[in-house]
């Protein structure tokens, strides 16, 4: 038993075998002959002497060319047939020329990257070096020149890039979506972008990028962007937000109604705020709606049915239930959709569009994980320029390159420049031979230096820079982290019902919390009156009256203009300004059965 190899199928022990390697060999041969499905894999672990057969779905499989005795089974003869289209992929798989490996079986395989390096030890040959990469990493040109983690970061950011969200984006009613105005084909493509047909629905733009510091405004991964370029439409996007609301039905046959509320409606906002509504109570397309203005006018039936008086039915007082534009979400009414809801009620969706022009605080990134936030928008004439008078759209800091080792970024800039000069789109797929020398020589032929560095002039003084500047063309994408959607501030605003303290969070227009450690810092600095202001004045300050006799909170009856203690009916009270949460504490203590007797007096 000891020498027998254990055999697991999908993790379950099903038996033992004397010669595991022979079993594996036989199994693989049968699979290549088509007797076993090509999705089933077998692998042998010689350390534990176990064989694993996996058939389950969800495993990652990738195709490789089978190698026998150091020779690729995809012979020249077959290659020609493939080129002519005489043989299909499926047939190659069926013939056993191409095989799918999963992660475990890959451990047993020795895969050559190139046909030239094949030896007798190799079991497989890579169809192309790109096969190592996933779809996202495969879209990055010259990935093999990058530090792997940077490429992974770059791949992660593909999903954050703005572009065209769908072919039906004109009719979509997503709560939030973005649309990039002038997406461009990338000048440096890869085989994967071709396969994915990225050029037909692009999401990037080709920026002229220079790598120089700009008066500290691009330090620490900040970007300096040209106002001229922005005004010409660089990185410009639209932001759509859809508000959807229905004419809901209530028990008792009452229902909401889309209309322009009149003055008699409870919670009437004022004539001005309803001015953008059309006759049907909905905002007209292409009108501009500002913060607080109604875009859907809607009234709801009253919460309580009014009593019927002797003179007949009083006209029911309806409640305003209009949808207004939230803080910071003003824009143009893009489209108004009227449909039917699940219960047969009228459903209205209003889509607001606003332009998101790149500004300080917006995020951009290249495909190599080189992301940055705009630190300054510079007038076009202040941008540095080269001998041809070309000014960069974007300036990144030289410090962004060495420690991150994203040479793919640098190479893409150079090749982008080459492509623009030649007027063609260049293949930048991974694992090309001698890319530096190849592209360097090509750019030299056009008249640039081999390393792509250029003479530059200061845009402000007009003086020539002492050193040379590297400028190239590289595709950048705008990421959906846009400041104007994140900006939040509060001077006064909503408070919580229970504690009367300011609300928390952007959605509720909340304040920023003065946390425990901040309080401790105030105390440490002796800034006790500042602390008092933040904890009481700016928060839940309240004027309370305490009974002199029993020390409980007294009641202020505004209607009768009397202040008295409910517990002992005395009207000898002392006013104290404190915070509302203290009143809550006293009440909590009372509910615990503890009598907190407040004595008021000067304690020195």
């Amino acid at each position: 038993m000891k020498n027998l190899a254990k055999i697991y199928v999908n993790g379950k022990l099903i038996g033992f075998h004397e010669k595991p390697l022979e079993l594996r060999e036989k199994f693989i041969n049968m699979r290549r002959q088509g007797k076993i499905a090509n999705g089933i894999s077998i692998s042998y672990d010689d350390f534990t002497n176990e064989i694993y057969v996996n058939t389950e779905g969800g495993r990652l499989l990738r195709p490789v060319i089978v190698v026998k005795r150091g020779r690729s089974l995809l012979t020249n003869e077959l290659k020609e047939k493939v080129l002519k289209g005489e043989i299909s992929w499926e047939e190659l798989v069926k013939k056993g020329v191409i095989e799918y490996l999963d992660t475990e079986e890959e451990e047993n395989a020795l895969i050559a990257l190139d046909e030239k390096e094949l030896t007798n030890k190799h079991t497989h040959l890579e169809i192309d070096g790109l096969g190592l990469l996933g779809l996202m990493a495969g879209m990055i040109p010259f990935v093999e020149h990058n530090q792997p983690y940077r490429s992974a970061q770059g791949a992660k950011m593909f999903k954050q890039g703005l572009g065209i969200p769908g072919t039906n984006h004109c009719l979509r009613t997503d709560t939030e979506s973005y649309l990039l105005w002038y997406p461009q084909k990338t000048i440096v493509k890869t085989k994967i972008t071709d396969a994915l047909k990225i050029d037909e629905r692009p999401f990037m733009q080709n920026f002229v990028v220079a790598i120089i510091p700009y008066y500290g405004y691009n330090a620490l991964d900040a970007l300096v962007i040209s106002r001229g370029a922005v005004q010409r439409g660089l990185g410009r996007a639209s932001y759509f937000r859809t508000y959807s609301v229905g004419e809901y039905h209530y028990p008792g046959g009452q229902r909401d109604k889309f209309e322009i509320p009149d003055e008699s409606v409870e919670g009437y906002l004022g004539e001005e705020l309803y001015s953008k509504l059309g006759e049907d109570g909905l905002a007209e397309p292409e009108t501009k709606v500002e913060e607080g203005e109604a875009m859907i006018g809607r009234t709801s039936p009253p919460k309580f049915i009014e009593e019927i008086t002797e003179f007949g039915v009083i006209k029911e007082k309806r409640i305003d239930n209009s949808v207004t534009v939230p803080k910071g979400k003003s824009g143009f009414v893009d489209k108004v959709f009227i449909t039917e809801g699940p219960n047969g009620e009228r459903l209205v969706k209003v889509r607001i569009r606003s332009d998101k022009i790149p500004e300080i605080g917006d995020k951009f990134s290249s495909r190599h994980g080189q992301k940055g936030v705009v630190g300054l928008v510079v007038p076009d004439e202040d941008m540095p320029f080269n001998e041809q008078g070309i000014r960069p759209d974007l300036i990144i800091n030289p410090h962004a390159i060495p420690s991150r080792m994203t040479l793919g970024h640098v190479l893409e800039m150079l090749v982008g420049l080459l492509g623009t000069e030649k007027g063609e789109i260049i293949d930048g797929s991974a694992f090309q031979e001698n890319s530096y020398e190849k592209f360097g020589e090509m750019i030299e032929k056009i008249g640039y230096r081999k390393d792509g560095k250029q003479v530059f002039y200061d845009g402000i003084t007009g003086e020539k820079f002492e050193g040379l500047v590297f400028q190239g063309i590289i595709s950048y994408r705008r990421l959906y982290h846009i400041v104007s959607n994140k900006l939040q501030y509060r001077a006064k605003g909503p408070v919580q019902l229970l504690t009367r303290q300011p609300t928390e969070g952007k959605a509720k227009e909340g304040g920023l919390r003065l946390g425990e450690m901040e309080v401790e810092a105030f105390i440490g600095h002796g800034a006790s009156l500042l602390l008092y202001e933040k904890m009481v004045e700016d928060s839940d300050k309240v004027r309370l009256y305490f009974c002199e006799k029993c020390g409980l909170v007294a009641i202020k009856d505004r209607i009768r203009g009397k202040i008295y203690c409910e517990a002992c009916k005395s009207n000898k009270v002392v006013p104290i300004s404190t915070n509302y949460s203290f009143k809550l504490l006293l009440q909590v203590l009372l509910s615990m059965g503890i009598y907190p007797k407040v004595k008021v007096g000067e304690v020195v």
Partner: protein
Amino acid sequence: MEAKIKEIINNLSKQFNLRKPDREKLKKIVLEDYRKRFVHYGEAVGQVSAQSMGEPGTQMTLRTKHRAGAKEFSIGSGIQRAKEIVDARKTIKYPSMVIHLKGELARDERKARKFANNLLEIRVRDIANIKENFEEKKVEIVFSKDAIKERWLRIEEVIDKVAEKIKGRVRKNFDKGTIRIHYNDKFSLLKIRKEVNRIKNTKLQGIKNIEGVLVVKEGNEYVIKTRGTNLKAILKLEDIDETKTISNDMFEIYAAFGIEAARNAIIKELSRVYGEEVTVDIRHVLLLADTMTFTGEIKGIARTGINKLKHSPLARAAFEETIKHLMEAAFLNEEERIRGVVANIIVGQPIKIGTGRIKLMMKG
């Protein structure tokens, strides 16, 4: 203090031939600088101390340093040790002593080493394996020769010593290093097991809790460093220099020398722990040590320690076990004077610290 500073400056100016205006200028600068370092009225010294020691604490490594191969025992370092001290934990992770020796012992390494080895606590269970045979009522003690050799003992002596304390028929075997015991019928099985446990715990030599000893040259004398501490027992020994011998367990120091010594031990140990990696002003350490010891016994900065001492029920409730403290305060009819920081924040009044401590009044 200011007079002393002036005196020093006067002496210095004589030494460097400073003229009078320069001397006065220097005095002014130095005194100004000196006065800046005063603690001002209303300053929250406790809070500043806590922050000044807590913030560097976050920078200190969580890793305990073990210098491999170095001739010393770990005495604990970093944030764990600092926490042990501040919490006034009774059992510490790396108890240790530095024993200074008197006279000839301090100069002669061999004698010191011999003395040190005698301190090491050795029990039978450390060096022997005991096999019980309940059917025949036989017990066999098998001594490990290696373990005995490691501890600089002689196997014959050990066997004789153990055999003395055994009730029952004993057969010694020096070559094999075993003792065989045969119990008669008077011994029940339970009693045999009890006997075996008694033998296992039999002390052969040494002082309780001393698990390891090392002789190290410090300056020009030999000192003994130990793993495990028992200050009281060590101090009773004759050849010890009781003026220098020290433990890192502050509770042992407290028991042996009293609260002032414990306070000094806290200061010394905290300064050492912090001094290894960061700089903390000694005044913060002093304040902490005073807070921990001013009651006459060591109180940790914890709910069982100084939190119990606070007069203000709200301040106590704000720390831990809120409901328990509120209920207790109500039960004892306690009064909250609203003087502390926490109490004033709770009731929404300015705290009596810094700017809140002073008031301006109009004249007239």
